């Protein structure tokens, strides 16, 4: 988390509809996967998109990457409109906008060594040629905490955490200004996840990166993000600074999410709100506010009129009743380590990261 800079990525009213039912199906249906999303990410800033499965957060990331074509709306990267650019003309933008996936195995060619994968990438983008390719690949691997010698290995020879490091090196290779992390640490074991989270934060400071951090894990989001946007059924329902969202959530859905996050060692209180039912079928979203069937505060107006995002002074919230409902109380404050024993013991584990030997100036400034 560093001081944010100028606006870098600006998304306005982005819409992605998927048509369900092929040419032979009787009824055509439309899924509003992304339903009018606007957001911005500033330089050196992390914006987290958080939500449960089916909320459209991954589709949003992919549409921004132009891996999926948007139905309508605008994606603006440092002042340039991306939605109208096509084909090879996208290449320079691809350099600025990179992605790290949940399953790095799926994003690495199993028949190419890491050297070949990263080398091709550098050559295609004209970032290195001849002998400098090998050097640069070694340098990238060391940046992400892998030995330069691992370039000779194939993806299957790496563990899950190491593979994610390769995935990050692949994204870093083209000196991006923003990386979309789609559940980048979700599939990893806790101890490996901590290493990757630390790495992502280290390289953010080192290279002045911005992240669009897509995750369902609220604890990781709280740790990583400067700002948070909560999505429900294709729409952003609340957004604001991380601290505000986590200490004073306004939307009933955000409150419900925070109520049920299991915090290790926290006393579980009984007055938390456990939502009933599941996320509704996105084919037939409820009328009015999408959240109304599960919302304990819903009134008639919520079933008829869809709320728009309005300012609370601290952020934006899409709820008719945000200033009428009682203030949220954290049902399970984190455990206290009164004598600081645990913290002192844990301090022995901090700073263990296979630190990227401080990067020589050239690596950081080749852009």
């Amino acid at each position, binding site marked *: 988390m560093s001081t944010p800079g100028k606006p870098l990525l600006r998304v306005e009213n982005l819409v992605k509809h998927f048509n369900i039912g092929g040419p032979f199906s009787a009824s055509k249906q439309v899924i509003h996967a992304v339903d009018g999303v606007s957001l911005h990410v500033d330089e050196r800033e992390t914006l987290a998109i958080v939500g449960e499965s089916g909320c459209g957060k991954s589709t949003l990331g992919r549409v921004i990457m132009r891996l999926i074509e948007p139905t309508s709306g605008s994606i603006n990267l440092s002042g340039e409109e991306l939605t109208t650019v096509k084909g090879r003309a996208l290449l320079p933008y691809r350099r600025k906008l990179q992605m790290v996936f949940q399953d790095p195995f799926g994003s690495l060619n199993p028949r190419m060594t890491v050297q070949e994968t990263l080398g091709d990438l550098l050559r295609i983008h004209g970032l290195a040629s001849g002998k400098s390719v090998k050097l640069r690949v070694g340098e990238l691997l060391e940046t992400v905490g892998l030995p330069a010698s691992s370039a000779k290995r194939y993806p299957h020879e790496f563990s899950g955490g190491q593979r994610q490091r390769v995935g990050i090196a692949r994204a870093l290779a083209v000196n991006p200004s923003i990386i979309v992390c789609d559940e980048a640490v979700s599939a990893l*074991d806790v101890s490996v996840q901590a290493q990757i989270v630390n790495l992502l934060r280290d390289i953010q400071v080192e290279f002045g990166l911005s992240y669009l951090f897509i995750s369902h894990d609220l*604890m990781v989001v709280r740790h990583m993000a400067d700002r948070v946007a909560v999505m429900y059924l294709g729409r952003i329902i609340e957004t604001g600074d991380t601290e505000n969202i986590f200490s004073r959530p306004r939307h009933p859905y955000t409150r419900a999410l925070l109520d049920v996050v299991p915090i*290790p060692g926290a006393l579980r209180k009984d007055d938390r709100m456990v939502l*009933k039912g599941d996320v509704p079928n996105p084919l037939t979203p409820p009328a009015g506010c999408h959240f109304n069937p599960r919302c304990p505060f819903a009134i008639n107006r919520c079933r008829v009129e869809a709320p728009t995002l309005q300012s609370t002074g601290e952020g934006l919230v899409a709820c008719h009743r945000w200033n009428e409902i009682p203030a949220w109380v954290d049902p399970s404050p984190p455990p206290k380590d009164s004598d600081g024993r645990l913290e002192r*013991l844990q301090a*022995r584990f901090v700073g263990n*990261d296979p630190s990227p030997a401080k990067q020589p100036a050239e690596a950081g400034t080749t852009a």
Partner: protein
Amino acid sequence: MHNGTQTLRSSAAGVSPSETFAEVSTVSAAAPLMSVRDLRVSFPSEDGLVPAVRGVSFNVLPGQCFGIVGESGSGKSVTSLALMGLLPPGPGSIIEGEVNFGGRDLRRLRPEQMRKLCGSEIAMVFQEPMTSLNPAFTVGDQIAEVVVTHEHVSVRAARARALELLKEVRIAAPERRLDEYPHRLSGGMRQRVMIAIALACRPKMLIADEPTTALDVTVQAQIMELLRVLQGEYGMSIILISHNLGVMSEIADEIAVMYAGRIVEQAKSAQLFENPEHPYTIGLLGAIPMPGRKRLASIRGRVPDLHALPSGCTFAPRCPFVEEACRQIEPTLHPTDLQHLTACRRAPLDRVL
């Protein structure tokens, strides 16, 4: 003299060469419902035998929720499968040890005796409800099948019982769900159906292996709440296996932390979270993002390869508190506090602070 006793005591706690398993298990008055003694499981592989579980012992008391937590490859799931006799008896696999349940050693039961016991007295819920449910049969039929098999009642009575069970696991519109196929249900509802099947014969023990791992947080909360309520209503014991320490702290009374095929620490839930003794537990808790935590603890290196376990303590190569002796002898689980077992020769760690 005072000094002398202290040295003596601390060295005894540090080495603890010869505890028997009875002494090792946490002290308690009630007779355990299940008692596992020195469970060992090895699988054959190209590089020889892989020791997946290397001597695990624990007791589960009636009505208690016993949690087993660990990362991938720690042996927690293999342990749970071995308890139920669900590991394939493939050539070369070795399963040793005792699993005592209600006076019988489950490991010595004949397959048909085991089948009778599974489902009626011990039941299991897995991570993937979709793969455990048969897609070709309705939910009602699958629940009724268990009831008919174990309680020898009429199909009509079993169906009525199935409906009752769907109500018990709080499925909305149970009459309608009874005749639906699993693919029509959401992940959370499928897991409820699995729990309904598990509870069909009012088991004394439920083994839940990562029951909420594939579910969203709001649904996860529903399932954990359900397990907690049902545990109270039925008074059954639960063995909860999970990688998620947050989920553990929701319902577990006592928690065992596994690393490289062994229990490295075991304590009452609150004690484990507030005063962990084993360096692995300490590192693991520090690696979880928490409010106010600046940088996450990072356990250097990675989980050891089970083919080539380091000599001495298996955590020694990654441990910031390591000393030479740790690399020589593998420490056994020994009491470091009241009802608190730790397999670390340096525990209690307050000495090193």
